[in-house]
């Protein structure tokens, strides 16, 4: 479970609203079920008590919503940021995507988010409610009289298992403790694929990407995908397309998307979280991050404001494209 409670966040938000420091609060709202939360804007204390929630399913990265909301709402917006969200927040700031003056950011700790798919795998369908205990979740279902207890660690999302940092890199106020940058094994999966043969890699991605239904959820949730007009929606871009077509179409979409966010992606994992087809899209981004780290030096997008990303930078002695062979590539 999370170390800060919904109640404490609610109270802080209500008081900031009350004293007029902020005009609105960007947070998570209860959906139909406890585990399907949606990002929401709250403008009154009552709304907060009614709907605001912070629990093991508050995965959504709220930073992207600031773009639109800071333009729509007069006055400051309070936003709750988990550690990984703060990286996106910083990255968007570097790209001048919103006015920092219009935001009041509160950093909140995160003990990792739960993956509902993993829970379903354990308890089955028909989940009605989920209660958080110390280190476990009590899952109520239609079919069981007693709630089933599952350990939090067991159902952590993939991205939280490979959490890169518990540190908040940007905030106005911090609730709870300041964490640290962690050493993660987030590139292990990429390396595994790199170790395959070209045919196996092709087959792997063919299998994954052919499931894409082009719902654009990955793009819409991605805090780096914030273009005023996406190239895939622009008839003049030459790559406009809205529906899944041939086999390649998806690859084109996902390669271009990964390339466009390369150097800007903070590895927040939203793309994979929101994918209804469970395509491990974050692996494409991680591949770019890994390659750039290994070729041009360690770089974490969003770590600082106003960094120069590897792809808008160069050094005179960069290796040649033919020499940049990281992991993959049949050496035969």
């Amino acid at each position, binding site marked *: 479970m999370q170390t800060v409670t919904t109640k404490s966040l609610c109270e802080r938000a209500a008081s900031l609203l009350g004293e007029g420091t902020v005009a609105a609060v960007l947070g998570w709202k209860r959906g139909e079920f406890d585990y399907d939360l949606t990002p929401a804007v709250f403008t009154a204390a009552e709304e907060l008590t009614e709907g605001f929630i912070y629990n093991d399913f508050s995965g959504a990265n709220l930073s992207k919503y600031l773009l639109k909301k800071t333009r729509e709402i007069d006055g400051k917006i309070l936003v709750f940021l988990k550690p990984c969200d703060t990286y996106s927040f910083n990255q968007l700031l570097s790209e001048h995507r919103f006015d920092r003056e219009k935001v009041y950011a509160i950093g909140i700790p995160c003990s990792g988010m739960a993956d509902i798919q993993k829970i379903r795998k354990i308890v089955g369908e028909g989940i009605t409610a989920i209660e958080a205990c110390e280190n476990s979740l009590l899952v109520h279902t239609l079919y069981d009289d007693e709630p089933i207890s599952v350990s939090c660690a067991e159902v952590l999302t993939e991205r939280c298992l490979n959490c890169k940092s518990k540190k908040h890199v940007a905030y106005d106020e911090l609730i709870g403790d300041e964490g640290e940058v962690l050493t993660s094994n987030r590139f292990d999966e*990429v390396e595994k*694929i*790199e170790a395959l043969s*070209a*045919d*196996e*890699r*092709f*087959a*792997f*991605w*063919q299998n994954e990407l052919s499931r894409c239904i082009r719902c654009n959820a990955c793009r819409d949730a991605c805090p780096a995908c914030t273009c005023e007009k996406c*190239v895939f929606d622009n008839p003049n*871009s*030459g*790559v406009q397309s809205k529906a899944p*077509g*041939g*086999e*390649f*179409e998806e*690859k*084109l979409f996902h*390669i*271009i998307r*990964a*390339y466009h966010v*390369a150097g800007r992606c903070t590895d927040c994992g939203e793309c994979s979280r929101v994918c209804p087809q469970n395509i491990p899209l974050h692996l*494409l981004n991680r*591949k*770019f991050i890994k*390659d*750039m780290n290994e*070729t*041009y030096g360690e770089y974490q997008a969003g770590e600082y404001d106003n960094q120069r990303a*590897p*792809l*808008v*930078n*160069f*050094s*005179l002695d*960069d*290796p*040649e*494209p*033919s020499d*940049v*062979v*990281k*992991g*993959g*590539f*049949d050496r035969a």
Partner: protein
Amino acid sequence: MQDVKEFKPVIVAFCCNWCSYAGADLAGSNRLAYPADVKIIRVPCSCRVNPMFILRAFQRGADGVILCGCHPGDCHYSTGNYYTRRRMSMLFSMLDFLGIERDRTRVEWVSAAEGAKFAATMNEFVEKVTALGPNKRLEDLRCKQ
């Protein structure tokens, strides 16, 4: 097997106006032959080449894409090819990650004086792509006519 049509690859070559396109012209002036499969698109600088162009070419049935620019340090725009070098390094590595044959893409630095290098590079590239056979993994079947 005689009646099987010999595989002629479609090769798109992006050449920067100042060095490589001039190098290609020099190859022509010196009558240095390379296969007609190579079709050159002139761009002001190698850094004008968007990865989307390369993917587009593959999607539309190209079997190989080669990008030629001035040697690092000699860019007419002083730094363009340094960006090209990074962009293409990353793109090619990603294509490799997706299981696309590495020999279908290439970056080569060809100066305006290197007509011979241009021709040799093209000959070698066409040979490699021909050996790989038609590009199946990146083409969009809908675009085939």
